[in-house]
């Protein structure tokens, strides 16, 4: 290369004045941008690896299958929190997923454009309501004057989950080609049949994605549960949603505030369980998301 290009760039192609500085600025910005991206990925890895390093040594079968030990006793596990979280998430999802999908169907199939726009806007705003405020709201409606309960906690979670599921569902339903509707109408099908037989099956992958994302999001929610389902007895297994249900996020939170290293170890183990659950769901949902969208887009 060097030998063949005997002449220096000259004449017309001489770089404009200041070209060296401009190039240097460009290079600097490129390097800074790359560093920023590396930094963000590094923080993610740092947090995940911290959880792995701290959580793995602390995790064992006892921890996953036993209840917490009585106060002052060593050992014990977090199985009551795992079961409680599962129940809370299940109830929340049983409320939020159907309501969310029905809302999405309403906005894409039945509602006039303006109402549809208004509902989407309201859902975005609801999604922006701080979850601690949701907790205070459910406390004010269901707990005040009475006691905390799994029901209250699950309903609080469902309020958090609803806008996520609904917006994701609207997005996929919007992608279902209108020509499918017309094909159905041309066959003499009524709209409700078109929705149930053509639209929903076509959008199924995307609907599942939205639901999974909703579950991943509420699985780690702590603030609403703190006000609605955080006071429980560690001595008995509670699976009854009329009482406060033990759960992983609140367990991590209270263990993290403790000064005892043994409690911290348990917090890390619980964090490991939670982060694996959430990250796996998120990654799976994302993979699904890409696939169903690209399929609908053709």
């Amino acid at each position: 290369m060097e030998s063949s290009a005997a002449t220096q760039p000259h004449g017309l192609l001489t770089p404009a004045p200041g070209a060296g500085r401009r190039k240097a600025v460009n290079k600097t910005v490129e390097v800074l941008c790359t560093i920023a991206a590396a930094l963000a990925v590094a923080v993610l890895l740092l947090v995940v690896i911290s959880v792995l390093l701290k959580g793995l040594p602390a995790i064992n079968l006892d921890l996953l299958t036993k209840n917490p030990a009585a106060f002052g006793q060593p050992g014990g596990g977090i199985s009551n929190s795992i079961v409680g979280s599962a129940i809370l998430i299940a109830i929340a999802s049983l409320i939020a997923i159907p309501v969310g999908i029905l809302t999405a169907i309403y906005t894409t199939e039945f509602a006039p454009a303006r109402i549809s726009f208004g509902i989407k806007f309201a859902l975005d705003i609801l999604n922006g309501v701080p979850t601690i405020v949701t907790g205070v709201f459910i406390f004010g409606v269901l707990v005040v004057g009475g006691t905390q309960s799994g029901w209250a906690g699950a309903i609080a979670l469902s309020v958090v989950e609803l806008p996520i599921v609904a917006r994701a569902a609207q997005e996929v339903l919007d992608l279902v080609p209108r020509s499918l509707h017309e094909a159905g109408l041309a066959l003499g099908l009524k709209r409700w049949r078109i929705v149930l037989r053509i639209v929903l099956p076509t959008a199924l992958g995307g609907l599942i994605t939205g639901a999974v994302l909703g579950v991943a999001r509420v699985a780690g929610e702590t603030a609403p549960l703190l006000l609605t389902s955080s006071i429980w007895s560690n001595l008995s297994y509670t699976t009854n949603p009329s009482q406060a249900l033990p759960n992983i996020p609140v367990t991590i939170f209270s263990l993290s505030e403790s000064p005892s290293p043994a409690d911290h170890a348990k917090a890390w183990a619980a964090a490991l369980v939670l982060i694996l659950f959430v990250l796996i769901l998120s990654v799976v949902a994302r993979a699904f998301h890409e696939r169903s969208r690209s399929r609908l887009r053709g």
Partner: protein
Amino acid sequence: MIPNSQETMTSIRPNTPSTATEQAPQRMASGHSVEVDALQAYYGNHQAVKNFSIAFAANEVTAIIGPSGSGKSTVVRCINRMHEEISGARAEGTVMLDKVNVYDPRVDVTAVRRVIGMVFQKPNPFPTMSIFDNVAAGLKLTGWRGDDLRGRVDQSLRGVGLWDEVEDRLNTPGTALSGGQQQRLCIARAIAVEPEVILMDEPCSALDPVATLRIEELIDELKARYTIVIVTHNMQQAARVADTTAFMLDGELIEHGPTTKMFTKPEDERTERYVTGKFG
């Protein structure tokens, strides 16, 4: 990456019978010829331009015609190295301008593009900039400011015949103009940095006939100062504006010569079929 062949400068002439171009008015002092040799252009594995060699004479308008997909846009995009902005795209061969290969690794790509300006298919003024700032955009990059800048912007707008139409609204967005005005604005933007060569990639395909005519008249005026290469799918347009016409098919240069000759008695039978509308 690009095989460097400064030495091959002498063997640039394509083997097409085109001595006629050489008799074009000799105004080499004010313009510059562009000599393309053995250009190969790829998009990934697809070769869009095959062994393309041509000399674009100074102060002449050369039209590249051919059916869609024949590689004519790719050729012009290789001349100012815009081709390489597309991911997966690469080019081999040499493009000589003023005795320097624009693909020489020591040539700054931004310098290439300043000297070889480009006008695109769709008028693309910067939407966030005023008419003035659109024309000034390239100049500001190299530090033009104040009165010098204003003078050059005025001059460029006059050069494309837009000055009278916009002089009282230089601060309004460039996108508020009509399509034809936008395209002339884009030409003003290109000539403001004083290039030697202007590449035009189907510059009228998005315009109505009246606006097209204005642009064609403008091209005729501009060739006194610039070497112009215009890609067009419109044979009438080539016949109206070009001194020389090149015909491409499937990535290859089939024939090139004086426009009148190309449209009346082309040498290649494929050219004849194309210019008489038998295919493409």
